[in-house]
């Protein structure tokens, strides 16, 4: 009978410790590596207004549709391009390009030009080992045309490589803009 009493006591005691204590509300997680925004700035050589292509998706992989700003290039003009990545979801806007450039050996941007579009890219910046990084580049608009321009950032690709197919790695960014040359 003693054992029974002890067991009852133990059960009561355990239900007591179960019943108490409630922690404070948890803190929201600041998604540190999230990239919400990619801005490609194309600056015409010899002056003129910059052309901005922008992709913004503040809820990351959430259900909200991204906002995409496409653009029109001037035929025959050469642009110097630069890519800026931002995390605008947190309280402070974070510049992710700086991290990518710091870890340049592990990243590479690929540019894919759609078949109808008469545009060429060249002069990508390099990483510390002389392979392509591609956060800055030169873009030359050819004749009047239109099509897609896709920017892909791969994390930990095989370097050097012959393009996306053989690069492996994990795609961090893949954004397609509708671009026309007029």
């Amino acid at each position, binding site marked *: 009978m003693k054992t029974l009493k002890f067991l009852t006591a133990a059960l009561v005691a355990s239900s007591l410790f179960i019943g108490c204590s409630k922690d404070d509300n948890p803190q929201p997680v600041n998604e*540190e590596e999230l990239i919400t925004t990619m801005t490609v700035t194309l600056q015409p050589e010899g002056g003129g207004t910059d052309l901005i292509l922008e*992709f913004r998706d503040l*809820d990351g992989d*959430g259900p909200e549709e991204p906002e995409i700003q496409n653009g029109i290039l001037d035929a025959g003009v050469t642009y110097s391009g630069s890519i800026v990545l931002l995390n605008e979801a947190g309280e402070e806007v974070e510049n992710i390009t700086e991290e990518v450039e710091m870890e340049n050996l592990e990243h590479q941007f690929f540019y894919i030009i759609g*078949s109808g579009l008469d545009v060429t890219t060249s002069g990508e910046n390099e990483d510390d080992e002389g392979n392509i990084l591609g956060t800055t580049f030169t873009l030359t608009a050819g004749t009047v045309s239109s099509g897609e321009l896709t920017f892909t950032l791969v*994390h930990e690709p*095989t370097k050097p490589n012959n393009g996306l*197919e053989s690069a492996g790695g*994990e795609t961090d960014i893949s954004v397609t803009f509708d671009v026309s040359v007029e």
Partner: protein
Amino acid sequence: MRTHVLYFLLLFNSNITMSQNCDNSLSGTVTDIHDGQLLIGVTLTIANTDQTVQTGLDGTFRFLNLCNDTYYIQVSHPYCLTKGFTVRVTGNTTKSFKLEHHIEELNQITIEGSAYSDKSKTILQNTINNQALERYSSGSLGDALNSLSGVSSLNTGNTVVKPLINGLHSSRVVIINNGVRMEDQEWGAEHAPNIDINSISNLTVLKGAGALQYSGDAVGGVIVAEASKVPVKDSLYGKSIMTAASNGRGSSLSSKLTKSYQNGWYATLQGSLKRFGNFEAPDYVLSNTGMFEKSASLQVGFNRFDYGIEGYYSVFKNEIGILKASHLGGAQDQIRAIESDIPLTIENFTYKINKPKQDVSHQLARLKAFKRFDKFGKLSFQYDFQRNNRLEFDSRRGDDREKPSVDLELDTHTVLLDLESDLTDKITLKSGLLARYQNNFATDTGVRRLIPDYQMYNLGVYFVADYQLGKQLLLEAGARYDFTFMDVFKFYRTSLWESRNYGQLFPEIVVEELATQILTNPQLNFNNGSATLGATYTFAKDYNLFFNYSIASRAPNPSELFSEGLHHSASRIEIGDLRFNSEIGHKVSLTLQRDDDNFSYSITPYIHTISDFIIMEPVDVRQTIGGNFQVWEYRQTDAQLLGMDVDVSYAFTNNVRINSQFSLVKGYDQTLDTPLIGMPPVNISNEIVYQNPDFNNIRLSLQSAYHFKQNNFPNNNFEVYIPQTETYQEVDISSTPNAYHLLNFNSNIDLNINQKSKLTVGFSITNLMNTSYRNYLNRLRHYADDLGRNFILNLKINY
């Protein structure tokens, strides 16, 4: 001559005792400890004398002419374990003795090779004994379970192996480790059970929810892992197993030492180390698939027939590399990976485990005590504590490089009170209570919480009774009720909260609205009832017919309720549903068993109907900055599984035997009228075994396992736009791999080193033909082949 001397000594001895004033008597009764019944025909002998009496028809005995002295009396009965008692006689003394009147029954079970009690009496139990387990010493629990018919595994690579019973896994399969229900975040498809296979000596699988003493929510089944029983005698023994394997260039070492005493005290210390580098498919190295496992356990206890206490502590730590080529971005990466015949990343062999990887530790502490009361039964009390810490590392950027993406700590406290009683000769009743508290804490890793912080409270009550009706028929019935309360703090993304219309449905749970997130406090209650009804009919000489109907009811797990976002290792967005209710399974199974040494078989057809079955299915493709991802949402549906497991064993001669297995399961989503995803394909395995106990117990076996192609699967393929080709391309995530055939060889031989020590040398080859194959139930099948040939050397020393 010798007998004469002995006789003389005895005579001499009794003469001494006779020389005092010795006219006292000792009288009393002998009763059965289970039901207090008087035992007739018990022999009582006073040691060192020739005084022997028997209990009469009234159950009493009487010794005469005893002195005021201490006597050692041996009490024996044909159906009981002989016990010794020390009795002090002063004047005319009365004393009652208790014996356990079940020993004959126990012996029978022991002869059949099982010293472990029945988990359910109306479901066929599939067991893996110690010897068979030792062959898997360098593998995992899931590998060993895979050897049973109807049990397969859901793999992530070859080191994360989750058991799958008759097509069901994860939260639907309850694992009981040394009496403790494992609470190790088992909900995840890539979360393997945190148990060292070397710490257990017996594994039992129940393909159904009938074992209500363990849980009521085991929709798929129950796996019971037990440590070996320690004998009550003075002894010191142990064993060490060393294994070296060619594939993965790894080895494992496991040792166990037990000290036991005649007075009931015992202690067992056990430890294992297992380390492997990158494993290899027939044609290439599987990059980043190494593992490093460490574990230890200590068991200290005191065991007497009528009471006992035991403390147990174990720690398990496992670091597992995840195939590098399997971590992908969006659909564009998936296409490239699926279309390539070889993994997109192949690196040289190394022992180093890089990211992505898992680092999991599990601690388990248990205190258990029992006492047998006369006419009442065996009462057990157990308290256990588990702490599971799960870290998952992905390739990350910037300051977070070395930080895990997932850091979850799950603590569980459980109190159990169980009573096992023999109500009459024919009726036994098991009943019990459970109280459990669980706390999940997600450390801020800079990645959205995969599982939110929550506290969960469970209360359970059950009974299971069995009734032996005549000699041939046993009936079993049981019921269980579980109450679950979950107190959750969950951050929803405002966009999801609104798109799901949760704002209208659950306005009361909002705690705080932030810029892009909403903090909510869902408080969920689940009431789960479960029941079992069964019968076992024994006929002819060796035939048994088992019938069981079980209802299991499972509350949705945190992953099914709260998932929200990109699941990296699956390369898809997964979304749970706050509105889910419990899933309820009805399973009817029938087994015909012939239990004979030369020719035994069992055939188990079953039908399993599950209402509100929680399943994930693709619903959409979502554009994100990382490209397109498929969106999978959890949904409740009605499902039906039909299947059959067959086991046959036939001995051609004393030494040669053939073992065959066949398993079939078909699963359907009845709402959509489509096949269920992830059902094991039909498989057949045949094994020929030569064993000769007269020649160093040599054992040679050759096993052939044939896995068919799964032809019933839902089509979850989707189309995605590929900028390079400017076309829409289909992502084939549904197609199933081709059928394959594997040959495995296994051998071992015993060598006696000296009187006390024995060496067992084992050598085996798995995937003998070095066949390249992919397994439908391996989540990495899209990216790489399965393991190639493996030579394994296994040394075991018993001492």
